[in-house]
Every structure is written in C-alpha cells, then in structure tokens.
C-alpha cells in the first residue's frame, strides 16, 4: 500500500493555551457564562456529530462530516461575531452553527436528505441572530460570494461583517483566488478563515500548495494575515475578534489560517486508513485536543466541575434527542416540490413537466399530450 507521508506544518502559530490547558499571558475577557457557552458548544458538536454518525450507519442519514478535534476553529471565529453578521460555512463548521443556536433539528433533517423548503415548513424554528449562508457542496465558491456580500456592506456603509470558512484543500480553487484578490482590491469587511486541517479527503496539504504556510497566501493579494493554533479557542477567538473589529472599523479584510488536524475520516464515505498512516501525528494532535485543553483550563479556573460537566452533557443529550426526534418527523418532500424554486413563475416547460410527474405518480401515462395543450383528453 502506498501512503502519504505527513509533514508537520511550520511552528510559530499564535497560541495562548498550551496543550496542557495552561494559559500564557492575560486571561481573555470572557465571563463564566460565555466560557461555558463555548464549552457547551464543543460538547454539543461532538454529541450531535456522533449521533449523526450512528444515524448514518443505520441508514437514516446519508453522509456525515465531523469536525472532531477541529472545534476550536469554527467556534472561536464565530464567537467573535455580533448579531446581524454573516457566516458562510461548509460541512466542517458545526460549532459555528451551534454557537449561534442554529436549529439543530435543521442540521439533522438536512443530513437526512429532505428538500430545504420541506425542512423549513415542518420545523418551525427560530432564525439565529447571526445570518448563515446555505452550505454549498462545491468548494471554494462561497469565499467569493462572501467577499461580494462584504463589498455591498462597504458600499452601503453597513456595520455588518462577513466571515467565511475555507478548507486548506479548497484554497486551490480559482474561486478562492478571486475572493482574495477582490478582497485585496476593494477592502471590504470580510474575514476569510482557512481551517487548515491538513487534509483534503486523501490529499495532504503539502500536495495542495508549495507555500510555506497558508497564511502567506494572503501576501499575493495585499490582505493582512494571521496564523494561529486552530485548536486553541482563546487564540482563535482573540485573533478573530481583532479581525472582526478591523473589518467593522472600515479597515478591510483579514485572512486567518487556523492550524488544526483532521482526526477522523473526511466524511462517512471515506476510510483514511487507506491513504494515511497518522499514528505519529495523531497522538500529538490527540494531545492538543481543543476540548480537552479547554476543559482542563475551565476546571483549573473553577469554572467547571464534574457536576456541571454532567449537567451540560445531560442537557446537550436532551437537545440532541429532541432535534433528532423533530428531524425524524420531517416527511419526505412532495415530488412536485422539485419545480418550486427554479425561477419565479411557472413557465410552460415547468407546468407541463410537473403535470407529467403528477400523472406518473397517479399511475397515468405522462406522455399523452401531443398538442402541447395539456392532458385532459
């Protein structure tokens, strides 16, 4: 078997919390509620993702991607935003969604494969305070859209900030280049976060780029950049907060590389044992686990103890159960829904094909119109 040899990313990324949960420097200005909210988000992410993994295995969910071991990156970044800001995300940022109370049931139902409008109609959920783009399948695309949105905010003198996540692999796409280039030229209030988990499915990041670091990519565009330990939620949050503030003050874009590691499979259709021998790095990264590290800190600071941890877990378990139950209530979509949001109005071809589909559903022959005038024979 041929496997990739892994390379360690260069040292030197910004870190506040060491692998043992010891803080270097000033404690962040976060009250206990906020500290616990972040803790809860990490716990909720793991619990939810593990549950979805099980649902996938039992055939209930179709494809599940987990962020295990990477939670501090999307969490710390998202926590730096304020209501009305925007987040453009991918399948790897559940902590960002959960931090802002994106309805869990929608995440689950989406993974069970229903049309978005079916989900929306059956789950009467609240909108989170922060705006979320949809999750797009094609990678890289959202970065350019996020920059465009921020350009509009700049032109309109809005105070909102747009944040977008991009994987290390996805920086190779042309849309990433465009996003960075337009960001450099128009200087809109956007924060572009590269969640560098060092793998893109089966490809290690040294096969994506010859750049010394991903952060350095920003040099090509005149965009300020930072590089941070993506498993250190304090360092991530502080860096993101500075970037968000800069953006909000009209000082333009920032590119942040968060260095982390994909501990698990790419998603449930992947088996990493085939292409990587991560035995060595895995242990190192296991030690840097963002939740363990953060939990140690919270316990040492007496923000968390066993009882509270149990409470949080129990609470999360209940939330996950409820979300799954609610998602299971979402029925399959009506087949005709596929015609609903192509364009506004119903042109002839849609009306006609919709009628065909309905006839097919009713066991009638859908091909009996030979005049273009419809089916009533």
């Amino acid at each position: 078997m041929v496997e990739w040899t892994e390379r360690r990313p260069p040292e030197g990324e910004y870190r506040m919390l060491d692998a043992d949960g010891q803080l270097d420097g000033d404690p962040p200005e976060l009250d206990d509620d906020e500290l616990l909210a972040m803790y809860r988000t990490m716990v909720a992410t793991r619990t939810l993702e593990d549950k979805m993994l099980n649902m996938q295995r039992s055939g209930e969910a179709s494809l599940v991607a987990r962020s295990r071991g990477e939670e501090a990156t999307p969490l710390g970044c998202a926590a730096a935003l304020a209501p009305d800001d925007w987040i453009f995300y991918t399948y790897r940022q559940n902590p960002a969604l959960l931090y802002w109370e994106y309805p869990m049931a929608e995440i689950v139902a989406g993974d069970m494969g229903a049309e978005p409008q079916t989900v929306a109609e059956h789950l009467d959920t609240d909108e989170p305070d922060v705006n979320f783009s949809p999750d797009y399948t094609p990678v890289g695309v959202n970065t350019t859209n996020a920059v465009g949105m921020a350009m509009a905010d700049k032109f309109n003198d809005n105070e909102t900030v747009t944040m977008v996540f991009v994987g290390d692999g996805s920086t190779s796409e042309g849309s990433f280049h465009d996003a960075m280039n337009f960001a450099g030229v128009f200087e809109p209030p956007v924060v572009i976060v590269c969640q560098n988990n060092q793998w893109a499915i089966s490809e290690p990041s040294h096969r994506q780029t010859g750049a010394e670091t991903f952060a350095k990519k920003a040099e090509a565009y005149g965009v300020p950049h930072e590089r941070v330990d993506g498993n250190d939620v304090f360092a991530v949050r502080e860096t993101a907060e500075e970037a968000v503030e800069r953006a909000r003050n009209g000082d333009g874009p920032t590119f942040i590389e968060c260095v982390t590691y994909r501990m698990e499979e790419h998603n449930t259709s992947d088996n990493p044992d085939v292409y990587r021998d991560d035995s060595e790095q895995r242990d190192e990264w296991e030690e840097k686990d963002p939740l363990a590290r953060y939990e140690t800190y919270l316990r040492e600071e007496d923000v968390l103890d066993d009882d509270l941890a149990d409470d949080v877990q129990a609470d999360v378990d209940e939330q996950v159960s409820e979300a799954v139950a609610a998602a299971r209530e979402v029925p399959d979509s009506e087949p005709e829904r596929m015609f609903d949001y192509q364009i506004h109005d119903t042109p002839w071809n849609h009306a006609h094909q919709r009628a065909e589909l309905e006839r097919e559903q009713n066991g009638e022959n859908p091909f009996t119109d030979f005049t273009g005038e419809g089916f009533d024979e």
Partner: protein
Amino acid sequence: MSETYPAPASDHDADETDEIDLVTAVNQTLDQEMARNDSVRLMGYDIGPIGGVYRATEGLLEEYGNERVIDTPLSENGIIGTAVGMAMAGERVVPEIQFMGFSYPAFGQIMYALVKMYDRTGGDIEVPLTVRMAYGGGVKALEYHQESTEAYYLHTPGIRVVCPSTPYQAKGLLTASIRHDDPVLFMEPKKIYRGGSQPVPTEEYTLPLDAARLVREGEDVTVLTWGAMVRHAVAASETVDADVEVVDIRSLSPLDVETILESVKKTGRCVVVHEARRTLGLGAELSALVNEYALDRLKAPVKRATGYDVHFPSHDIEDDYLPDEERAQYAIEAVMNYEF
C-alpha cells in the same frame, strides 16, 4: 402572449421618443434604472472610465460614482462570484461579461452560485442579477469574441435568457430584466449595436420576459429566430415566394411555447435561424417541441439555418459561417417545396 412589433409610435403612448441605436438604448436603460433604484450597481472590467469596450456604460461612472459602476479585476469568475454575494446582500447587480465567449471561466460561479442559490435555499435567497453579455459574430474579432453559446445557459435551470433584436426591445427587455427577481442572462447582439436607430420612448417601460414576439404575420411558414438574425429572417421573408411568419423568440429561456406552437400549427412549416452551432443549438429544442406537439400539422420537416458545428472561424471566412438572408431564404424555400 405574443406582441407585435414594430409597434406604431402610438402603441407605446410615448409623447417623447429618442432616435437611438441598440447600444445607446442599453446605456439609457442602465442610466434610468440606476437613477430609479440605488441598489442597481454595475460591475465588470473596462466599464468605468472607458465606458465599456462598446461604450454601453459610457458616462455612468461620472454620474453614479465608483461604488455603483464598479471596475473589477480581470476575472469573470470573480465578477459573477462577488456579484452574487452582493445580490445576497440585497443589491440588484448588473455585471457585464465583455463577450459571451469569455463567460466560461465564470462557469463555476454561474452554476454553483448564480443559478442555484434560490433553489438551494428553498426560495429564501433571491439573486436578482442581470448578466449582460455581448454575443455574436460578424465583427472580425478573434476566436471567442464572436461566439453565440447561449445553449449552455438554456440547458441550465434557474436563469432566464433574453435577447433583444431592436433598440426598442433592448430597452424594454433590459428594464424588465433588471427589475426581475430571477437571474437573467441578457444577450446583446453586438453586430447590430450600431445597426440602425429607431424611435424609443424616452420614458421607462418594460416588455415581458416570457413572451415571443410576432414580427411579421404569414400563413405558409414560420421562421423562429432572435437577436441579430431577425433582420435576415425578415429580409428573406420579403424576397421568397411564400407568406412568411417571423417570430422573434426573444425569451430564449423560458420559451414561450404557446406562441411558437400556435404559429407552427397555423403555418404547418417551420424554419429556425440562429448563429449558434447547430448540434444542440436552440434550434434542436424548437424542432423537438414542434415534432412532439404539432407533428400532425407539419407539412414539411423543420429545417435549421444555423452556424456549423465548428469553432468560430477566422475573419476571412466568418461570413461563410454565419447565417444570412440567403441561408434563411434557402431554408424557407426548402420547406416550401417539400412534398410528403
């Protein structure tokens, strides 16, 4: 659903008209829509100080400033991608792709963001962009400056495709496109940008985005065409020995199937004239629709007077590629002379 044209001046009830050509109609429309709605913004390269390589955006930067007339880096994918983001933020962006043949680097953003966001969000997010593209041949420019590849976008859900054939059409259709909440690909027939002026109402007006236009009534044969080819179809109609009906498709997607079928059912014969390559050019769909829904009325096969299945050729033979009055005439005569 169809509408006859040229409308007599009284038809549009316009007190005031301007005698303008097609590119000037585009320019005037952009100006009026920008004046009317602050969220209308133009994007593209070379649209600012230079006013577009064909001067379609001339004067607009001066009037509206560089946050409304936005000169961008040289990346079609970046233009569409950021324009979609601006639209998601509520703007009504009108990006320009300098030539239709340069839209291909943007195909990713077109497919993944522009035409899909509305569906992807279950109707939550609209992307009311109007992408202007100069298209078509006969201008002795190189390679991709001369193409008519609308077929790529006609096979694509989630976007309307519209093409004017006169200054009056250009203004009404562009106004309607900009105001519509769907993405619209607005094809501008650059060959006739300055191909003649006509009185166009000074006031703003819209034309329907889903209706073909009856250019000329006739009983013997229907010619389906659009854009810069309409003039050849009309010219051919006037020389052939048949009573020809000319339908300007105008709304290429969605198609106004009713008007098309009605006409062909009446005449029993059909010819399609288009610049695009024949195989899977829109003529194929039109012929298939006629076949499927009007077969028993057909007195002859549908003939396609089109470009050929080749890359747009070099200057010295471009006129041999492009359909013209003569080619349209041959096709009409062929179907007129056909006997079962």
